[in-house]
């Protein structure tokens, strides 16, 4: 144990521990899932850490707006932990934070292509105020430009420009945002991988375990989706995926691209992950794909929770906590949409990534 690590990470660790205690407990989840409707859900949420973010006029608190407001919590803790985390671990958190910037950019481009107004787009974005290269004003200008090429020209000052401007040729030819979005994703993942590799010692080991697992799952799911949903060729799948990873190797991705049985590829990597039979044969099937996606996301959640066991003075602690929060908010999003649509509990409870509560088993 190095004194330097302890002194550098003691404040971050203490802060994360304090924040970790504010995450939703299984009892709170149970209350949220059992809420009668959207209003009851909001009322239950008002007793949680998300309460201050929901203090706006009730008529403005639509399901979409509620999700947006809740995301402010994530923005706040990201900004806090980035500030507290020492270099070079800070770079990793910054890179993780920029995933939301990439998502915002993609949402903005979709808005531009759909001819949406800024008011329609703004609450679909992740709230981000600090440590950003792309401001809300930039995105507003993009939306107002009404043209994808012009919108890209407006962000010449950001690191995304070079990536987008080259992919723009394909957008012009195909009139589809897919190439732009894939180019952004690949570029982002390369940057994230680079941030992991810039770390040393236990920081590198833990970042690889936590963030590397997230990258692995994304890469694996991309390959599966490209094959099952988009029916892309082997070469296209290879070009649209990553050659690196923590547990997922390039040979695994190439095997999926070449048409191998998905279950046979996935099981040796994640023996504990349940691969549904629908997808085992390599055929299509939305339900099967959703099930494997859920299993893999739960694997990420489990890995993140595992980071809190053992030696605590490393970048894995804030990174794991932030990813756990992201998953908590994803679950809350599912819950908000389900309650707003008045779906019965059995239709959505099993889709929660952070919870495998008793009531699911009971209902079975």
């Amino acid at each position, binding site marked *: 144990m190095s004194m330097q690590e302890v002194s550098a990470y003691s404040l971050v660790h203490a802060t994360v521990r304090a924040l970790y205690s504010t995450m939703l407990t299984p009892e709170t989840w149970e209350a949220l899932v059992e809420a009668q409707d959207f209003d009851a859900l909001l009322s239950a949420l008002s007793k949680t850490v998300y309460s201050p973010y929901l203090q706006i006029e009730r008529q403005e608190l639509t399901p979409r707006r509620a999700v947006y407001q809740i995301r402010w919590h994530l923005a706040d803790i990201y900004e806090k932990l980035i500030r507290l985390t020492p270099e070079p671990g800070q770079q990793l958190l910054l890179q993780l934070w920029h995933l939301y910037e990439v998502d915002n950019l993609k949402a903005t481009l979709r808005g531009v292509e759909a001819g949406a107004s800024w008011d329609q787009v703004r609450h679909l974005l992740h709230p981000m105020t600090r440590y950003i290269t792309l401001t809300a004003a930039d995105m507003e200008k993009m939306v107002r430009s009404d043209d994808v090429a012009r919108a890209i020209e407006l962000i010449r000052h950001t690191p995304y420009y070079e990536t987008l401007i*080259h992919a723009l040729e394909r957008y012009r030819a195909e009139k589809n945002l897919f*190439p732009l979005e894939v180019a952004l994703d690949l570029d982002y993942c390369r940057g994230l991988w680079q941030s992991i590799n810039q770390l040393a010692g236990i920081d590198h080991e833990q970042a690889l375990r936590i963030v590397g697992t997230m990258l692995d799952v994304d890469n694996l799911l991309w390959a599966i989706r490209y094959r099952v949903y988009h029916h*892309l060729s082997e070469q296209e799948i290879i*070009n649209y995926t990553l050659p690196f990873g923590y547990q997922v190797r390039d040979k695994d991705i190439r095997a999926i691209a070449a048409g191998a049985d998905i279950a046979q590829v996935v099981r040796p990597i994640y023996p504990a992950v349940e691969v549904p039979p629908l997808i085992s044969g390599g055929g299509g099937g939305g339900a099967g794909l959703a099930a494997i996606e859920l299993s893999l996301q739960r694997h990420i959640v489990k890995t993140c929770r595992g980071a809190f066991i053992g030696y605590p003075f490393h970048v894995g602690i804030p990174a794991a906590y932030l990813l756990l929060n992201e998953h908590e908010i994803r679950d809350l999003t599912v819950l908000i949409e389900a309650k707003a649509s008045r779906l019965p509990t059995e239709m959505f409870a099993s889709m929660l990534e952070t919870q495998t509560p008793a009531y699911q088993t009971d209902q079975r």
Partner: protein
Amino acid sequence: MFRPQAMSKVELAVPERDVVPVTEALAASGAFHPTLTGHLGGERVPRYAEDWHERAATFAALERRIVIVMEALGVDEGPPPAETPHLIELEMAQSDIERLEREAQAPVQELEEGQRKLAQLQRYLGQLELIADLEVDLGTLRSLRYTFVLPGTMPISNLERFQTSLELIPSALVTLRREDHLATVVLFGTQRDADVLNRAARSAYLNPLELPETYRGTPAEAIAALKSNIERTRQYIAECQTTIDYLHEAHVQRLRHLLWQVCASRTLAETIARYGRLRYTYLLAGWVPASQVPTLQQEIKQVSDKVLIEVNTPRRQEDGHIPVALENPPLLRAFQALVTNYAYPCYSEIEPTLMIALTFPLIFGIMFGDVGHGLVLALLGLLLVSRKVRALRGLSGPGTLVIACGITAMVFGSLYGSVFGFEEILKPLWIRPLEDIMDILMVTIAIGVGLLSLGMVCNVVNAALTRRWGRMLFDHNGLAGLAFYWSLIGLAAGAFVGGLPVSPILLAALAAVSGLVMTFSEVLEHLVEGHRPLVEGGLSTYLIQTPIELFETVIGFLSNTLSYVRMGAFAVAHGALSMVVFIVAEIISPAHGVGYWVVVVLGNLFVIGFEGLIVGIQTLRLEYYEFFSKFFSGGGLRYCPLTLISRREE
């Protein structure tokens, strides 16, 4: 000078046939601020009557067409004409514009076509230069039957992955060059795999080079041919430009004249369209400075003797709708800008430009007292006012303000005995702030008390002007507030200084009575001004609120007064900062060599620039937040006389 110009309401009934000359006369007078009268009349307007809305829209369309021709020929709008143009005949304007459009159309189209062609050729050239080293005939590359060839550029970061994806397909990827983050590559394969290779290349973001169909030979030969073609196209563009330059010279005056005429006609039509209308009569109303009414009446009578003019003095209820024309001498314009930057005064309230012209330099001078620094500021102000430096012309407005601040800084510099931070050259006429800190602080508090009292007196006057007797008597900044404030000041002065001519018991009684009056000011105001209910929002809430409000007022008086301490504090800081400059200079060069003087000069420049800015901001803060908040409500309507030839972008 303390009030905006007195305005008169002028209402006119104009016969239909005279509406154009009368409107032109109103615009030419530069004194008529129109108000909306479109809601008046409207009944039984004959169907054949002139539709001014339609005419305004037609003129606007014509204006756009003229602007397009002007942009194509590179003609700007030029200065506005000296005389207001009259309403132009629509048919004449239309035929003029059509003729100009016809003349400009062909050369402009040819020029655009040439520019498009040049851009295309340059794009080809840029792409061919990437493969300039290839010794292959372009024609052959295009006509290969069995071999697939795809030259293009792709991100370097995708190269390795692309090669991986091609492992199982018979192909070769040759990298010709790498620049920045892009690689120029050529992908070879068989035509049989063309589809797979194309999809793979696309997914690796390989953008194929767009090679011109018409060029043969090696890339180097094609580049040479392209360059000569580019040269020819440039010559063609230059010829087109010459024609356009000729047209520019030939039509520049006509186009500008036409633009201003149409622009004025459009404004005229829009103005008339907003008038009220009876069967054969237009109804107009507006505000005119009272002093200019007789001249305006004469000017209108000259163009039509059938116009009925009624002049009224404004009623009190119209206060919010009366435009405010400020009439300050040019020397005070910079201070007027400070006032309007805060808010435009209401018609019925005191216009505080003169007060700010006196107090702003005073406050600045107290904080920035130094003869040398003041002199530099005054000279800078003179330079700004003289407009001799082109880059500073935009700042000529605040020039007088800088001069005034410079002069007061010099005056206080003499009082403090400070010249460029040197304290030994001049004997102080009054005190040295650094040595007599308590004195300067007490004096500045006294000045603050004076300014706040002045603010409250202005509030009393404003209330009297609007006949808000309740506000005048009972408001926190009214007579009750003033009595309360001064009785507290008296009590404090008696406690700390002693020897007051007024008995403390009397002062305490006055404070208690005025405090009580202020506590119930809302009820009393409503009672005197006839508003009902006397208490809004319930008696219990009111009873809870009032003591808190009184407490807030007391705290407000205290903090407002103490806020002026900063004047003394900055006077001390100014001296201390100058002292630091000399200490640093001594350290750099104890023998007072060149280094010493360099530090003194640079340090003084720093003090003038840095502290000058901070003191300026603090002065503005004291004016806006402590002084103005006592009496100045703002929200007035700016006086904008009708004009037909305002610049288009305004």
